[in-house]
């Protein structure tokens, strides 16, 4: 019994790890195709049919490139930077519930690696740790542009973490739990949290854009001012790790947004499907639904990137401290008042 559970968990970990890597890999392809579509171009179409093998070619190129470590860089930290970036990106997905409980034979399997009772806070911790990869790499490069990129990343992440946390508090007042599994279960059918927390979701999404350093918040790697930003001095697969970490972060934050606000694996009519498809197939449909939501969010990330120009730095700080934080606090107060009124009169 014990060993079987352990093996199931191990398989789950490997599968989730593989899926996040494959999704990140094909996000790079999707990003180019979406960019091409939005700019009325063709996009990559040489490697394989529709350029479907392009990510493999890019990966091979990254591994084959010459690896350059600047002479004045501090060697060990130069390697720690990208390693830390990709590690923190990968461990975030451990607490996300990918689907309802699945029954194979007489065994019930949780489609979640671990359900710690502080799941949301764990994700916060991982997100706040993510900035170290950028900061250490930028500082170790011994380059002014890298350092400026790293400093920008640090101040940006700290500023937007606050409003992200405040937007979550309003959600927690309604759900009454920190466990992502319970939050997902509460949104059964169409009772999605976005219906009760639209403002909270908007704030959370803007902060997610800022935390993943995606455009319009990609100031840390602003080419027009900082050459390449924090990864100016990086080459070969170490650069690949930084770029890859961004796409994994995008995948994980899409999954978090889908789970917290858009019902996770729940969809209208799931009871009917569960009654007809049986306890083995129905959870798989739930997983497919969750992934559809995740891909929709990833597409949204790309859509925004190729539509909106990036902010100026003072605009970024202004938005974070003077707009989003007061909005998030107002959201908490409103949520408290309305839920108390509903409790009193209904």
């Amino acid at each position, binding site marked *: 019994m014990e060993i079987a559970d352990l093996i199931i968990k191990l398989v789950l970990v490997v599968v989730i790890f593989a899926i996040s890597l494959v999704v990140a890999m094909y996000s790079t392809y999707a990003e180019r195709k979406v960019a091409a579509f939005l700019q009325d171009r063709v996009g990559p179409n040489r490697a394989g049919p529709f350029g479907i093998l392009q990510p493999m070619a890019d990966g091979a190129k990254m591994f084959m490139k010459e690896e350059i470590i600047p002479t004045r860089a501090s060697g060990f930290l130069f390697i720690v930077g990208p390693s830390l970036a990709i590690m923190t990106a990968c461990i975030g997905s451990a607490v996300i519930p990918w689907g309802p409980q699945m029954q194979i034979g007489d065994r019930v399997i949780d489609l979640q690696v671990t359900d710690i009772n502080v799941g949301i*806070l764990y994700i916060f911790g991982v997100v706040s740790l993510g900035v*170290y990869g950028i900061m250490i790499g930028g500082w170790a490069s011994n380059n002014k542009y890298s350092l400026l990129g790293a400093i920008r990343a640090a101040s940006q992440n700290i500023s937007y973490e606050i409003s992200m946390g405040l937007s979550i508090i309003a959600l927690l007042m309604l759900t009454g739990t920190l466990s992502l599994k319970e939050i997902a279960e509460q949104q059964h059918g169409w009772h999605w949290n976005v219906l009760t927390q639209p403002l909270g979701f908007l704030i959370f999404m803007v902060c997610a854009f800022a935390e993943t350093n995606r455009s319009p918040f990609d100031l840390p790697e602003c080419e027009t001012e900082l050459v390449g930003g924090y990864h100016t001095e990086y080459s070969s697969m170490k650069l690949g790790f930084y770029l890859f970490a961004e796409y994994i972060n995008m995948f994980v934050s899409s999954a978090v947004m889908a789970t917290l606000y858009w019902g996770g694996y729940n969809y209208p009519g799931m009871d009917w499907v569960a009654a007809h498809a049986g306890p083995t197939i129905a959870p798989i449909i739930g997983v497919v639904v969750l992934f559809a939501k995740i891909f929709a969010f990833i597409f949204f990330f790309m859509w925004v990137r190729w539509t909106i120009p990036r902010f100026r730095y003072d605009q970024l700080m202004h938005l974070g401290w003077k707009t989003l934080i007061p909005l998030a606090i107002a959201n908490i107060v409103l949520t408290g008042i309305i839920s108390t009124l509903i409790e009193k009169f209904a």
Partner: protein
Amino acid sequence: MSVFYFIAFLSILFSLLVIFAKNPVHSVLYLIITFFTFTIHYIILNAQFLAVVNFIVYMGAILVLFLFVLMMLNLNEDTEPTKSIYVKLAGIIGGGVLLVTLVGAIKLTAKSNPVVLQDVNLGSVQNLGKVLFNEFLLPFEVSSILLLSAMVGAVLLATKEGKPKATTV
């Protein structure tokens, strides 16, 4: 038990490295690892909430700001100020006195058993919230006012000099 001693050893090792590192940025990085070992201590004590909060607030926010400031100032080994022998001597004596005081204070307190838990669920979010908002409501509120006053003070210090000199700067 053996896990506790291993983690405790790592905590002490990395705290020593914080002091002995020549480069200030390396020093802060060791401090980050030290705080990470504290997080593991909390998990061993089954205080999940405290562990995660320590992780987010200390490792994720305060030390990022430490690192941020150090990188902004760009301090290096050669820019580190060298202090005179008297200052060093005063530091050693002060540290020694503090050590004696701490050891004396610890000897006076009753021995506790940190590894064996009295109440296994003490550290869960629900229990902690109930205890904080029932038994310790007043100290909790007072400490929040303390934090607020610190914040207001910081804002005041930051804006105080700006106003009269606004035309000259």
